[in-house]
């Protein structure tokens, strides 16, 4: 059995990550506590930075030096990293960033939330960049996706974000740890490690003062993002075959939604679930076959309605897209979600704009 936050750390170590730079924040603290013990044991470095800003730029330096490196924070701390993330994307440096999301905006609270979806998927920083976003929903999946996160980061030379919430971080579940030696990270001939044996300097940079040059870079990035869009969407479906109402949810909420789908199925309602595992690229493919059959979609989030936009973009008007959400750290219950499904299936609308009334009535 392992706590989710600890699984993030152990997953990273087993993926060959030896460097962690971060700044304390609830509800991800078990991760730095764990790594402060574990990393020195495996010859790695745990460094508590003076801030999230410093942490993300230490990550930038370590990634430039060719290391598998990560940082972790929660919502306000991730906001502080946005400039740095834009730089990492612009300089095409691989790294893994963990956001254990909490209630917002502002200081908010430390309860579980999913209200950083826009920030995660649309790039909270400046410029045309994207990063892959992975959203595990079990402790085992955390372990598996941490390995994938580092692989994707290196493969695409791009930051990868892993998002969860405090429930996932605090939860204990049994995990299977593969006892393999960590994979050797791919060669990084571009890394700034000193020119010995190479002769020509390597330069890590995102400045291109001539617009034509910067457009060229943006084209290269756009092509890379297009490749990621084509190859990397990941998702899971549950009882989708004959579903007429499809719930879309990720992370912790997907588990609640899955139980809710089972509950309404037991009452004879043909519901199904799409669980995006990558939030960016958003998995549009599972929606493709549903046109015509599915009468309604329901996005369920611990937010005021953010992923619902991606669902709308995926559905493109083929069927109404409804929303049910709770905010502020309130976790929707299986019963609530089951009722939301029943109610839209019956034609009642739980529109985004009504979420607060709806949520209120439901309590």
């Amino acid at each position, binding site marked *: 059995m392992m706590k989710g936050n600890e699984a993030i750390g152990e997953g990273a170590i087993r993926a060959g990550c030896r460097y962690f730079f971060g700044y304390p924040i609830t509800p991800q603290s078990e991760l730095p506590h764990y790594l402060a013990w574990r990393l020195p044991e495996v010859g790695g470095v745990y460094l508590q930075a003076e801030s999230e800003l410093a942490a993300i730029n230490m990550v930038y330096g370590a990634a430039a030096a060719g290391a598998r490196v990560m940082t972790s924070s929660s919502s306000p701390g991730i906001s502080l990293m946005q400039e740095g993330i834009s730089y990492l994307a612009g300089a095409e440096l691989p790294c893994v960033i963990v956001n254990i999301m909490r209630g917002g905006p502002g200081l908010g609270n430390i309860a579980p939330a999913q209200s950083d979806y826009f920030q995660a998927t649309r790039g909270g920083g400046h410029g045309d960049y994207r990063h892959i976003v992975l959203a595990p929903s079990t402790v085992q999946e955390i372990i598996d996706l941490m390995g994938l996160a580092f692989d994707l980061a290196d493969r695409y030379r791009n930051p990868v974000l892993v998002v969860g919430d405090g429930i996932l971080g605090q939860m204990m579940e*049994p995990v299977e740890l593969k006892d393999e030696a960590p994979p050797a990270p791919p060669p990084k001939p571009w890394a700034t490690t000193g020119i010995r044996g190479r002769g020509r300097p390597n330069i890590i940079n995102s400045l291109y003062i001539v617009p034509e040059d910067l457009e060229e870079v943006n084209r290269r990035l756009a092509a890379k993002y297009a490749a990621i869009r084509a190859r990397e969407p990941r998702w899971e479906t549950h009882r989708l075959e004959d579903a007429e109402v499809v719930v879309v949810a990720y992370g912790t909420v997907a588990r609640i939604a899955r139980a809710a789908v089972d509950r309404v199925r037991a009452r004879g309602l043909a519901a199904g679930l799409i669980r995006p595992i990558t939030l960016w690229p958003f998995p549009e493919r599972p929606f493709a076959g549903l046109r015509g059959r599915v009468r309604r979609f329901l996005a369920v989030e611990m937010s005021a309605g953010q992923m619902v936009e991606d669902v709308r973009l995926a559905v493109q008007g083929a069927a109404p897209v409804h929303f049910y959400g709770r905010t502020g750290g309130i976790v929707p219950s299986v019963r609530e979600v089951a009722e939301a499904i029943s109610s839209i299936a019956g034609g009642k609308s739980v529109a985004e704009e009504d979420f607060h009334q709806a949520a209120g009535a439901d309590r």
Partner: protein
Amino acid sequence: MLWEILITGFGGQGILLAGQLIAYAGLREDRHVAWIPSYGPEMRGGTANCAVTVADAPISCPLVTEPLVLIAMNQPSLDKYEPAVLSGGLVLYNSSLINRGGGRNDIRVLDVPANALAEELGNVRVASVVMVGALIGATQIVSLGTAMEALADVLPPHRHGLLPLNREALARGALIGSRCRFSPAGGVMPGGAR
């Protein structure tokens, strides 16, 4: 079978450990298990609770908002969470600190003088382990022997000197629990994938 258990009480009553004990015991019996604490500002000094799920099939949702079993270690938490217990469910309460049983008649209720028993054993901190024993006695969710083994999983090595005491606490609790042979079959249980 899907056991969704909520354990609630004061911080410092060993709530989180009790939950882990059940989960580890389930794990030792190759069941699917999950454990979630409440966390945050409530932790320090205030209330504490955790949710444990033990199941024969993979667990969809490890969150427990409508528990089949509630273990209430103090009055405020009994008051707060009893209404959420599933119809047909079970409530074990710490009768050393709680005066009245619950007000519902669609659930089974078992009073366990956990603090008193623990004090008898010489250490009030094992009260929550007494409660786990009672749970096992009442439900056979796991075998008592497994739970005794699992104690080693949840107590840190430097506390293993306390294993005998804790085994005793489990046993005493189980004795009380066995007064009430609870089987959830009769209860109204939602959820399809059990």
